Every structure is written in C-alpha cells, then in structure tokens.
C-alpha cells in the first residue's frame, strides 16, 4: 500500500516536472513517415531475403548432414575402432559445448 502511494507520488511528480518537456520533445522530433507503397516494397523485399536465406541455410544443413552421415557409414564399414573413437570425441565435444552454453546462461541470470 505504501509502495503504491510512492508510485503515485513519483508518477505525479514526473507528469508535472518532466512530462511536458518530453511531450514537446516528441512534437518537434516527429520523423518523415515513409509512404505505404514504399513500405510495402520494403516488407516484400525483406520477406524474400529472409526466405532465400532460410533455403540457403537448409541446403547447407542437408549437405553437411549428408557429408557427416556418409563419412560415419564409411568409417563404420572400414574400421569399427576409429568409428568408436570419433563417436566418443563427438559426444565429449557435444557435452562440453552444451555445458558451456548452459553455464553462460546461468552466469547471465546470476548477474541480473
């Protein structure tokens, strides 16, 4: 309840001492607004760019996946020992990467 009162006092103080200046600031800094057709062109262009980028990323993902899978199958066919070694290294790398990301996130939360 007391906090609410403090909030109201602060709100009234802001509206009286800062609000009018900010309103005037807004009034003199209104930007030129782009036309509807110009904006529509921009929206369409950006949507196309994003779509193109997503297709590119998807193609890259599949190429990498095919390369990794065929290498693994080739390795499995030729040397089971090396296959196990590579799998272990990949697993360790994956665990390390995930814990690094998780640790960074926790650190960020803690700092907040």
């Amino acid at each position, binding site marked *: 309840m007391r906090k609410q009162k403090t909030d109201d006092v*602060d*709100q009234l*103080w*802001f*509206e009286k*001492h*800062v*609000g*009018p*200046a*900010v309103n*005037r*600031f*807004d*009034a*003199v*800094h*209104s*930007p030129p*607004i*782009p036309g*509807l057709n110009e*904006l*529509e062109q*921009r*929206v*369409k262009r*950006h*949507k196309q760019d*994003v779509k193109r980028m997503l297709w590119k990323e998807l193609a890259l993902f599949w190429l990498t996946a095919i390369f990794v899978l065929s290498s693994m199958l080739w390795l499995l066919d030729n040397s089971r020992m090396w296959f196990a070694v590579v799998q272990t290294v990949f697993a360790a790398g994956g665990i390390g990467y995930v814990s690094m990301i998780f640790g960074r996130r926790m650190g960020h939360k803690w700092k*907040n």
Partner: protein
Amino acid sequence: MHDETKLIKQAVRGDSRALSELLQQNYSFLYQYVLKATMNKSLAEDVTQETMLKAIEKIASFQGKAKFSTWLITIASRHVVDRVRRNEREKHWIQEEQSLRAVRYDTLQRMNDWPEALQALGELSSDTRMPVLLKYFYGYTQEEISAMLDIPIGTVKSRLHNGIKQLRKELTNHEEAKNG
C-alpha cells in the same frame, strides 16, 4: 482498435500490405520512443529500421496478446540494450556525450529551448532511462516492463527508484541554482 486487430490478423497470415499499414501507423511512435531511449538521432534511425526488419521477420509469431505498438517497443528496447552493451565494450562513452549534445542542439533549433528536464533525462544511462520512460511516460506496469526488457522485476524497481531519485536531484539542484 478494431481496425488494428483486423490488420494484425491479416499481417500474421502473411499479408504484406496489412503489415506495411501497421508499420506506417506506428512509425512515429516507434522512432520517438527510440530517440528518447537513446538520445542519439542516428542510432534512433538505425534501431527503428532494425526493429521494422525484425518485426517483418517475426510477424508470424506475434500472438496479439499485447498491442502492436507494445510489441514494437519491446523489440526496439532489446535492440537498444544490445547496442548500448556493444558501445560499452568498445568504449564509446565520448560518442554518447557528443550525441546528447547533438540532440540538444537540434532540439534548440526546433523549439528554441532545451528544458532542464530533458537534460536530466538525457544524463540518465539508457538502462535507467528506458524503464523510467516506459513506466512514467507510457504508463506500463513494472511487470510489463520486466517482460519487455527481459530483466527481473527487482531490477526494474531499483532502476525506477534510482532514475526518479536522480531526476529529482538534478531538477532540484537546477531550481536552487536558479533561485539562489
């Protein structure tokens, strides 16, 4: 309002014209918010453009729980935070001072005045200025600000407290200097 809801539905379904109308209707509002949050004209222009591009990319995921303008402000605020962090890392403090001076000069040209309230607001760090503006100028609640800026509510409260305290101090000092 009804018109906005209809436009949002169309935009979410992929209608570019509807999205353009929404962006056009909110363009001034967005730019003015970013300009106040950054007190830097060129940065405000960049962040406004980046926000619009992000909105175009993410419109399909907009659920319509908040107003479209609130959604834009949320995106813009996060861009501002990123930019400020980057500037801090690259130690661009002098640039910040220069940009405030440039905004002051520009405002003086346009309204023949640079109120002390704006100077005091400009001297707050943007981390503090954004919650202060969102709460006391735009009327968002602390919970909404916490979600918009992606910071804990305790941080919002302390930034509001410090921000108002600093504003009061600056303006009181100025009043005293003027009277005494």
